């Protein structure tokens, strides 16, 4: 069952059987730009980047992005930077979160997507972002980015500690920026 999440919707990551999720993946996929020029060298590549920011009580503690692929504590791992996109179906970039190993003081992890090459989501084909239960591959939530507004970034979702384990809230706030740093002013109000 996939939930096509709407903005502000919160879903608990507690499983139906009472167990809590232990490992989630945020996947990001988009279709590469069509090749231009004789050798494709003049293609205006689309580079979307997925990032995750770890917060303790609204203070950023660590961030996982293409230049820091593993959080210092090892609980959040980025599978690597994809600079051009794929076919628009599978995940081109992914961030894996081992919820059991997230340090005790981290209470929120915010996932963001931004366009490093500057195209707005209007110009990107088949872009999506999804959250997957990494233990069984089940998709928990999916956002379609393509055909979106004239913005270059989006605060996708946050997972945060609640009384019974972790909860995910879909955010979907549009923003503009080249990297997650530009997004900080947009992230802080949604914490």
């Amino acid at each position, binding site marked *: 069952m996939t939930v096509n999440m709407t903005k502000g919707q919160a879903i608990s990551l507690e499983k139906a059987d009472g167990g809590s999720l232990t490992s989630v993946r945020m996947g990001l996929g988009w279709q590469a730009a069509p090749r231009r020029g004789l050798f494709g060298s003049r293609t205006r590549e689309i580079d979307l980047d997925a990032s995750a920011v770890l917060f*303790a*009580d609204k*203070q*950023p*503690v*660590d*961030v996982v992005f*293409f*230049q*820091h*692929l*593993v959080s*210092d*504590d*090892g*609980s959040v*791992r*980025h599978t*690597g930077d994809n600079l051009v996109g794929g076919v628009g179906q599978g995940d081109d970039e992914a961030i894996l979160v*081992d919820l059991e*190993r997230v*340090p*005790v*003081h981290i209470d929120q992890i915010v996932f963001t997507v931004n366009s*490093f090459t500057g195209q707005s989501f209007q110009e990107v084909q088949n872009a999506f972002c999804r959250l997957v239960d990494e233990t069984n591959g089940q998709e928990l939530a999916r956002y379609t980015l393509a055909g979106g507004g004239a913005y270059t970034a989006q605060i996708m979702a946050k997972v945060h500690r609640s009384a019974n384990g972790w909860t995910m809230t879909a955010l979907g706030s549009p923003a503009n920026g080249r*990297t997650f*740093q530009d997004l900080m002013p947009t992230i802080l109000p949604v914490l």
Partner: protein
Amino acid sequence: MTAELVRGQNHPLPGTRLEIRVSAGTPVVAAATLGDAEGKVLGAEWVAHPGTPALSGLEVSRQATADHRIAVDLDALPDAAHRVDVLLALPTPDATRAGRRGPARFGAAAAPFVTVTDLSGAEIAHYTLTGLDAETAVIALELYRRQGAWKVRAIGQGYAGGLAELLTDRGLPEAPSLARVIHEAAARSPARQAPTPPRPSGSEGDRTRQAVTPVLGPDPAGTPPQGAGPGPEYEAEYGDPGAKPTLQGADPGQPAPAQPLPSPPPPPARSPSRPPEGGPVDYHHPRRRTTAPAPTQPPPPAASPTPPGRPARPVAGDANGWSMDERLYNQVWGMFEDLARSVAAYRSAVAFADSRLDKELDQVLSDPRARVGGQGDTARESARARHERLVARAQEVLDRDLAQLATEAEAVEAALPPAYARWDSPVWHGYRVPVEMPMALRLGDLRLPEAGHVPIPMLVRLPLERGLWIDSGHTESPGDPSADAHGPRSLALETAVAHTARLLAAHPAGGFTVHAVDAAGSGARTLARLVRAGVLAAPPAVGARGVADVLTRLTQRVDLVHMAVRGGAADSLPPGFDTSRQLLIVHDFPRGFDDRAVNQLRYLADEGPSYGVHLMMVADREDCAGYGPLLDPLWRGLLRLTPVADDHLADPWVGHAWTYEPALVTPGSQVLARVLDRVAAARRSVGR
């Protein structure tokens, strides 16, 4: 399911009445010793052997046979006994009856195979003792008591010196005479009337089955994927700061320690043209090849299945790799990363708790209402309580991680081959000159203050990618009595000798040549250990002339190999060219060095490693103050090691400052001399 043990692996025992079946393919003597909590055998009466086959709770056969059944009743053992070692030994030639001459060493026999079963015959664990060579006695298994429960551990520790050496190692003073008694008793006993029924399917049947039904546990998630990406150290160097920014405000707040460790765990980037030697992997003991092909190809070790919710029991060699050597190397680096990250999580949580406490206390101070009545005190109390709770939770997580890593470190330590092992490890007793160079060498231990009881072996790749600098000017620990007793300089040279011995021991016979320069002869006493053993190419060079000679020769060598490689004419090297790797130990630098020699030294430091010439400087940077910044690149290019514990090494992931402790020989131990003797003998045998 029967557990397939690998060397160093342990397995819980479900009951206390057991049978240990040995199947050796050739007659062997089986014996068992009882050990106290420290593993010491208190006397001959603690040894069950053919002469005294039955002890309370333990019974072995009276003669040397190919198949044994040893009965064990752990409940009936003396209370003081905490472990039982099961030993196998080849009968001595004179004890073997004429016409039945057995092999003279385990390497010439099929690999012995031991099975632990319960009384109903149900198998609990197997262990195949592969990789034995010149040994004539071996500790096969150990049963030991841990927190009230008994476990079995696969040992496989062989002794070329036979039972006498083995029993001596177990702390038995009368070992040689007892060894004689055992062999005589085994030879005297009447020919077997087949008191033990033959095994139903024979040992071969067992082995075949074992080879086709490997017990593979689930791959634990403990090992991070290789090549998951460079750590922050590398990003700082190679990243493109203009294009993409880094996080500000997420700085761990710790000044970057002086020197990053050189190599992150290597991606499994062995050239595909190099398959594992001989197809299947001999994971037991990488450099000890049996002459006969090992009869079984046991599966890669993996954590056995455990009840869900409990971390898998750690097993040595539980990592990726083509050989046990590589697996252990990757496992050690995996533990290194896990420990770095666990401690990073803990430190981050504590730092956060501290800053939150400060902020809350400040707020209380600045709040005018807090000054009246007890409100301020209450607020302070609750802020402190919040701080304590968070720190306690972080500590709990850290303790859990550390407990698991400590167990893993223990299992791994027991399985390490000499090049990776501490000097006090028993594998050095069985040391012999390897046929090929191991993947890496242990230069010491790394520890973090939060985890002082979890040492990480510091393994560096061979051949050394850069030179070593043993810092003799290091006197930061005035409290260290050993530093006072010897002085940092002689301690540094001692350390250099220990590292050199290890390097020599890691290379095949004649594959490593050591030169030394000691211009004033001030290190002659310590270097004499190498000279006496006969492992130096020539006595340490003294005086400016001597220094210049050695440097010129090595520089020419680098030039020659460089030209040959560049010209693609490696076979055009002069006949008789010594192709071994070279190590130059420089003591007392810069004494005896003129400008030309200094330049040659820098050239060797830069170019040497690629052309088989390595440098080990034993030096105090202060002595070279006269050169100004000229030598800075030299020091930076070398891996700095200290003769005493010092926290100057940084891991490549988080950049913690790790306390390095050099791998030193325990004072009074003869292991270094023995190893050097074997190296020297091997050198002589190949004519160097």
